[in-house]
C-alpha cells in the first residue's frame, strides 16, 4: 500500500479519531515507515503551533466582571440582608413587648399569687378562720349575699372526700370576694372567688395550674361566668384539681 492512502488518514490518526482497530494498524505502519513518521512529526508540530497561536486573545477583567454580573444569581443576598435586618428589628420589638408584658404579668401574677397564698395562710393561722361555720353549702352561700357583689355556686360534696368548713370575706386589690375553706384528709384548701373585671391583670392568668418552687402550696385558677376562681392549699395537685373540677361543674 502506498503511503498516500496512509497520509490521507494521518490527520485523523493524529486527532485520535480513528476507530480503535484502525488506530492500532496505523500506529504500527507509522512507526515502521520513515516518510509517514516524518510527516506525522511535522503535523504534530503544526498542531502544537496552532494550539499555542490559537490561544491568542485574552479577555479584559472588566469584560469578565460585566458578564459575571449579568449571569449571577439574583441579588437575593442584598435583598435578603435588608429583609433580615427589618425582620430582625420587628422580631426584636415583638419579643421586647412580649417580654415586657410577660414580666409585668408574671410579676403581677407573682404578686397575686403571693396575696392569695397570704390569704390562705392567714386564714389557716387565724383562731377564727371562718366567719360562717357550716358544712352546709346551703347555709354558706346565702351568707355571702349582700356582702359580695356577685353570686356563685358551691358544689355538692356528698360523694367526695372533701368537706366544707365554712367561709369568710376576702379582699384582693380592695375588691371583696368569697373565701371558702375545705378539708380533705386533714389538708385545708382555700377557694377564693372574685369578680374578674375588678381584678388587675386578670386577663394574663388564663387557666393556670401553679406550683411555684419553694411554695408549699399547689394552686389552680380559672375564669368562669365573669368570676375568677383560685383553689390553693397544701394538698396534692390532684386533690386541688378535683376540687377545682367540682366547682367548675357546679357553676
Amino acid at each position, binding site marked *: 500500500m502506498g503511503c498516500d492512502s496512509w497520509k490521507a488518514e494521518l490527520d485523523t490518526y493524529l486527532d485520535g479519531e480513528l476507530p480503535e482497530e484502525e488506530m492500532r494498524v496505523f500506529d504500527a505502519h507509522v512507526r515502521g515507515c520513515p516518510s509517514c513518521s516524518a510527516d506525522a512529526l511535522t503535523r504534530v508540530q503544526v498542531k502544537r503551533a496552532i494550539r499555542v497561536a490559537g490561544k491568542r*486573545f485574552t479577555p479584559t477583567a472588566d469584560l469578565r466582571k460585566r458578564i459575571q454580573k449579568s449571569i449571577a444569581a439574583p441579588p437575593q443576598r442584598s435583598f435578603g440582608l435588608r429583609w433580615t435586618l427589618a425582620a430582625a428589628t420587628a422580631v426584636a420589638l415583638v419579643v421586647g413587648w412580649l417580654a415586657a408584658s410577660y414580666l409585668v404579668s408574671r410579676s403581677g401574677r407573682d404578686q397575686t399569687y403571693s396575696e392569695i397564698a397570704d390569704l390562705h395562710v392567714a386564714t389557716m393561722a387565724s383562731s377564727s378562720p371562718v366567719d360562717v361555720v357550716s358544712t352546709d353549702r346551703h347555709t354558706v352561700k346565702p351568707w355571702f349575699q349582700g356582702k359580695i357583689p356577685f353570686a356563685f355556686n358551691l358544689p355538692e360534696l356528698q360523694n367526695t372526700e372533701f368537706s366544707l368548713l365554712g367561709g369568710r370575706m376576702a379582699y384582693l386589690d380592695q375588691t371583696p370576694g368569697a373565701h371558702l375553706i375545705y378539708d380533705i384528709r386533714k389538708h385545708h384548701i382555700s377557694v377564693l372567688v372574685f369578680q374578674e373585671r375588678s381584678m388587675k391583670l386578670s386577663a394574663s392568668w388564663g387557666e393556670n395550674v401553679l406550683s411555684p418552687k419553694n411554695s408549699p402550696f399547689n394552686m389552680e385558677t380559672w375564669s368562669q361566668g365573669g368570676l375568677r376562681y383560685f383553689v390553693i392549699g397544701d394538698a396534692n395537685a390532684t386533690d386541688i384539681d378535683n376540687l377545682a373540677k367540682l366547682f367548675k361543674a357546679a357553676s
Partner: protein
Amino acid sequence: MCVSETSLRLESFEQLALPHFEGLYNFACWLTQDRQEAEDLAQETYAKALKGFSSFRQGTNFRAWIYKILRNTFLTSRTRLKASATMPIDVEGEEEVLPTTEETPESILLQRSDWQRVQQAMEHLPVAYREVLLLCEVEEMSYQEISATLGIPIGTVMSRLSRARKMLRAELRPGP
C-alpha cells in the same frame, strides 16, 4: 416558579457557563477579527444562553451548546455581513487552489518566533476553515462535538479540517 428555584437554575447556569468564558472570547475574536465586536458577541452569547437555558437538556454537552449559540449569533450579526463582504464564510463547493504535490515533511520546522506567522496564516483562512481548526486544536473538541457545535455532518468536519490544514501548511512552508 418560586424564588429559590429560580436562583438554583441561575447558579447552575453560572457554574456551567463561566468556565467557558476565556475560550468563548478567544473564539469570538478569531471569528470577528475585532476586539470590540468580540466583546459584544461574547456578551450577547451569554445573554442568549441564559435566556434559553431552560431549553438546555441537563447532562448533555454544554460546551457544544454554548459555542453553537456564539457561532449562530456571529452568523446573524452585522459582523458576519461585514466579513462576508471581504471573505466568504461558506466554502462548500469552492474551488481550492492547492499545491498538487505533497510538501516534503522536513520543510516545515517551526520556531517559537514563528507563532506570529502561524497566527497570520490562520487569519488568512476562510472563516469556515478557521473555526473548525480552532475548535479542534484550541478547544480540543472531538469531531462529534464540532459536528454538534457547527451543525454540520462529521464528514464535512473532517474534510474542512483536512483542507484547513493543507492551506496552513502551504502558507507556513518556507517558499522560494
